[in-house]
């Protein structure tokens, strides 16, 4: 069995429009990969397709050798894929604690009891890491949050839910430098736990700190180029033209 998130020849059509035209990508456990590309190149659609929001026209998505195609989104989530949304919806009345507790309880094996103490400790530790004070626990999910608060809240959930892979849609939009440092630290921590990541970003300036294992450049629904940090340096120097 191969421990990886593997996407192969993925095609996606939305309203008769070809969004993805044969994307292939493989992320071994614990690796960080970055997905770049212009607006409308299909980055967001790819992430949403992986977690089961858009029905895939053809292709294969496997997690540790097991196909995810056609599974309901909650099953894909429980198998270990976490999507940090670019603009997550607000859930008025639902507190962050409630959301996380329900999400963890949904993952519990039949007959097992939920460990409230441990949940409490994990949540507290994660909030501390994200620089969130205890009042955050009872805030309503994304309700009235600033852009930066939403990102931190998404990362907090990733830390507590402990997936196998995190998919970050626009990790850095709306974040100031300090907040971004916290995000990078969190990703490092996840990586130490063996969590892999696929990160969508517009900005090459974070690549140095992220030090990804691979960078993929999406153009019009296909991966135009893949490479390591050299690709990042080229983009940094000359912008997206460098790779197109």
């Amino acid at each position, binding site marked *: 069995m191969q421990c990886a998130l593997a996407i192969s020849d993925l095609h996606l059509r939305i309203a008769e429009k070809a969004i993805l035209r044969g994307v292939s990508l493989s992320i071994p456990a614990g690796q960080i990969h970055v997905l770049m590309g212009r607006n409308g190149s299909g980055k967001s659609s790819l992430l949403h397709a992986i977690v089961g929001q858009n029905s895939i026209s053809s292709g294969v998505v496997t997690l540790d050798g097991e196909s995810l195609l056609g599974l*309901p989104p909650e099953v894909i*989530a429980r198998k270990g894929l976490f999507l940090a949304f670019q603009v997550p919806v607000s859930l008025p009345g639902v507190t962050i604690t409630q959301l996380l507790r*329900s999400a963890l309880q949904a993952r519990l094996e039949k007959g097992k009891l939920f460990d409230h103490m441990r949940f409490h400790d994990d949540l507290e530790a994660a909030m501390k890491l994200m620089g969130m004070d205890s009042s955050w626990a009872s805030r309503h999910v994304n309700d009235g949050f600033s852009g930066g608060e939403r990102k931190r809240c998404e990362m907090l959930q990733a830390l507590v839910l402990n997936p196998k892979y995190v998919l970050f849609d626009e990790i850095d939009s709306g974040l100031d430098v300090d907040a971004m440092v916290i995000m990078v630290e969190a990703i490092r921590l996840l990586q130490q736990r063996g969590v892999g990541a696929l990160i969508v970003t517009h900005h090459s300036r974070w690549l140095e700190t992220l030090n990804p294992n691979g960078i993929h450049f999406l153009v019009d629904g296909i991966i135009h180029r893949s490479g390591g940090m050299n690709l990042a340096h080229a983009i940094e120097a000359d912008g997206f033209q460098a790779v197109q």
Partner: protein
Amino acid sequence: MSKKLPMDEEFATPGNFSYATEYAHDAGQGLSEETVHYISKVKGEPKWLLNFRLRALRIFNAMPIPSWIPVDLSPLQFDKIRYYLAKGQEPKRKWEDVPAEVKATFDRLGVPEHERKFLAGVEAQFDSEMAYANLRQSLAEKGVIFVDSTEGLLRYESVFRPHFGKIVAAADNKFSALNGAVFSGGSFIYIPKGAKLDQPLQAYFRINAERFGQFERTLIVVDEGADVTYLEGCTAPRFESATLHAAVVELIAMPGAKIQYITVQNWSSNVYNLVTKRGMAHELAGIRWIDCNIGSRITMKYPCVILAGSHASGEMVSISVAHHGQYQDTGAKMIHRANHTTSHIVAKSISIQDGVAAYRGMIKVAKAAKNCKNYTRCDAMLLNRGSISKTSPTLDVSGNLSQVQHEATVSRVSDEQVFYLQQRGLGETQAMGLLVNGFLNELMREFPMEYGVELKRLIEMEMERR
């Protein structure tokens, strides 16, 4: 309700249970002067009360069913209802004396053993007589009276009689008239001046006979500066034919008194729940109605506060859930009759499948009343195509020195919200449950914790049925 919840056997078939009971007194089917004489005689009531009942019966017979009633009440055949059934036993004082079958019913209701001991005065209406009425010693020492209505009027006439029928007159509406004619059971509470109770007074209600209406009459008098919370929760077995529940509740808050009246209504889906609840708040007094309606086929209930003294306050917190075949017509009335009175209403409703949730409200500021304030907020959530929501508030204000404000919204759970939660690993039903509980959350907090937990479960169960 065929689907079973894995979480809790106890809640898998709520209300779907009933125990055989033998009745010593039975007024038979139908309603006549003889029925009223029979009830009054069995209960050993004084003449003035018999006259009250007979007058109420005449009013009931003369009054038409209100034209604005939104639903068909014709399945209610007044001549087929049994108006009085009782086991003919005195209310029990000790838990040991409570019949085993009644205890069995409590077990099914899930009242935990340890909680029962702490209940300040459990008062359980098992059919039309109190099966159990325990008044804890500390309450008696404070001079608190907590008995059923019959005992109240027989033993404490000097407190009972001046207030009885004064807030809700028999002629108020057809169903309060019916209640006046045949009432039995319900609570009478008197809290003396300045008394504060550490724990809420609690009553469990049950209907346990087919075609047998329940006509409780509750009267709560809270003297100056005193404070009480009263809890009433209902769960009823299921029956095949329509069951009528026409209760009357009267609250009197003397100057500076505070009354909080909490109801969780979960009658079975054939019950017609037509209830008149009204309180009068004197100077600096406060009355809060906290009301949750989940069950019944039809509920029509608009708790009212008459703000009769200056600086009195009235509050209504209302949750209603209307499932398939249900009509929850609930709301509130605030009548400002004195200066500087304030009222606050927040109502949230959920409509599932073809359920209808309606809010009907009335805010009245009388000519003589100045500097009054009201704020009303109604939010409705629709869960399915075909779910129905109605809002009908009336604001009636005289003069330029008061502020009255009403706001309402209607919304639904968005696909994006459900997907977000699915991405976190929740199933669709769980996601809906979480969102609906979130919608109701701020109001749930108003209920005592054990009720809150029960409500949450009931609502999750409603999501399963969706």
